[in-house]
């Protein structure tokens, strides 16, 4: 039972990293990115082939690279690959600067990527994908299986914390503010020197880097990675978490992840399986997600935890310029 909870939490934490990354595109910039899971996949694949030994001895499977590198380097490699993929896709998809065209282009990209990688055996072993991925630091630590899962959970929590911290910093920075201005009114932003295309592209790359991190972690956790694990629908499920929790808001996004992507799947998992209809409960789960999105957008479009910025009044007090008493008196 404990193992099960640890396992669920671990996946939840990794997915949390992914939703934080996706939120950069949606909550900060206001773009609907449907290729996100494709970028996650690229990170997972590259991290995987950096970590795996050469495919020559694998008995039939083929993949590129195969460098047998340690986990930390593979992690960075995966993140860099995802960032580059985001840069390439973003530079094309963001050109037109129109929301629905961006969404369409990203879906097209995701589908092309799936078709290509499934077809081309030689790159990432096609349909079967990569397998036999080592668990991070396993050789070094030599822990028992039940202890190792705690370590891995801890590792993921640390990485989630780091991601959260960095993204928060960016959000309150002038860069984050620029993105929000572009989101609110691109024309006015252009009137104040903001190059919407360049800034959106930067944000997209930031999100892509998070995608890479999550991808490598996910692949390491499962030990394998193949095209069936990253269908277009997965991206949409991440959006459920973002809408539920509150767009643009890191804390809200994590709350949304907990509810929509941890609790709900777990609850539906305990429902008995009906023989002959193996697809029924996944289907119901997805329907609930779809209905949830519509429901959230109707009843609470801002999400459960709305966006909040520190008030200048508070910052003034903090800097000791205006004593609290005077501020109250000047109301």
């Amino acid at each position, binding site marked *: 039972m404990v193992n099960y909870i640890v396992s669920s939490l671990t996946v939840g934490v990794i997915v949390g990293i992914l939703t934080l990354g996706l939120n950069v595109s949606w909550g900060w910039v*206001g*773009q*609907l990115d449907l290729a996100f899971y494709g970028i996650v996949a690229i990170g997972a694949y590259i991290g995987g082939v950096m970590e795996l030994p050469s495919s020559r001895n694998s008995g039939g499977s083929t993949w590129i690279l195969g460098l047998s590198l340690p986990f930390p380097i593979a992690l960075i490699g995966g993140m860099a690959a995802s960032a580059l993929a985001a840069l390439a896709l973003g530079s*094309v*998809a963001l*050109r*037109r*600067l*129109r*929301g*629905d*065209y961006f*969404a*369409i*282009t990203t*879906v*097209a*990209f995701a*589908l*092309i990527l799936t*078709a*290509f990688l499934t*077809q081309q055996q030689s790159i990432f072993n096609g349909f079967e994908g990569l397998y036999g991925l080592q668990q991070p630091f396993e050789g070094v630590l030599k822990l028992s299986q039940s202890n190792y899962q705690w370590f891995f959970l801890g590792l993921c929590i640390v990485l989630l914390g780091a991601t959260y911290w960095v993204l928060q910093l960016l959000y309150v920075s002038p860069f984050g503010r620029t993105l929000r201005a572009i989101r609110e009114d*691109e*024309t006015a932003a*252009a009137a104040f020197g903001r190059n*919407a295309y360049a800034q959106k592209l930067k944000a997209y790359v930031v999100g892509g880097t998070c995608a890479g991190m999550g991808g490598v972690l996910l692949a390491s956790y499962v030990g394998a990675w193949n095209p069936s694990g990253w269908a277009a*629908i997965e991206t*949409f499920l991440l*959006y459920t978490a973002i*809408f539920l929790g509150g767009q643009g808001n890191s804390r809200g996004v994590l709350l949304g992840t907990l509810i929509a992507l941890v609790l709900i799947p777990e609850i539906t998992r305990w429902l008995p399986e009906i023989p002959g*209809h*193996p*697809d*029924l409960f*996944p*289907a*119901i789960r*997805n*329907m609930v*997600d*779809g*209905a*949830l*999105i*519509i429901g959230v*957008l*109707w009843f609470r*479009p801002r999400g459960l935890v709305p966006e909040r910025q520190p008030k200048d009044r508070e910052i003034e007090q903090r800097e000791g310029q205006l004593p609290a008493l005077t501020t109250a008196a000047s109301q």
Partner: protein
Amino acid sequence: MLDLLHGVGFGLVTASILALATVGLSLQYSVTNVPNFAQGELMTLGAYGAYATDHLLHNLVLEAVVALILGGAMGWFMNHFLIQPFSRRGTRGITMLVVTLGFALVVQNSILAIFGGSEVEFHLPVSKPSHVGPFILTSRDGLIIVSAIAVLLGVHVILRYTRAGKAMRAVADNVDLARITGINSGRVIELTWLAAGAMAGFSGFVLGVQVGVLTPTIGFAFLLVVFAAAILGGIGQVYGAMLGALIIGIGMEVSAVYIPGDYKQTVAFAALILTLLFRPSGIIKAPSRHVVEGI
């Protein structure tokens, strides 16, 4: 050379199916301004509806009618219970797109829940392929092309010569102006969703007939190709949609002559990306409104 011509022949069939779906999408977008990501599911609905009907009665016409009705009804339903309420709230653009995506999820998975995820065969009796000019076509292919032409002709006639059609064009052009001249824009929008839904349902049926195998994701997979055709032809331009469908349909099949068939869709997506890069307004440009160009 012969292969090429055969490819063109197959392309005509694909283009016909594509045209039905694309014209529906473009018409709906031009009138309502809502990018409908649930369009694919309306197609799937039509296909499965026809399939279910086929189990009861082997009647092609009945199946087609069922597909039309299901698609039209669902289109109307979407508009009445989803689009209008959200639209009255001020929801527009990307958020509305997300709403349609959520609905797509619900519809697709409902079909999955009812029919299961595995492929179901949808066979129609078909004649042996015969040579029609330089092309190789079966009777089924011929039916598809003919029905598509009939529907498109019908759309053309309606838009050009009937009151409803002219009202649609007026609303598509400038909804405020249309309202002022006494057109009931709400009614026009309802009608458009109905018509576009019916076309989607019918195109799903035709797609299912041609592919021969149905899965719950069949519509969604096709949707992207539909978008490619719509954007290539000029989003919101009904005649552009026909042109875009023709180009992409033939392009896809001809490309299969030279590169592995699994990449057919990739060809469509490549066309989409190239269009967005070099001529985002599509082949047939919409009359320019006051677009801010300099950003």
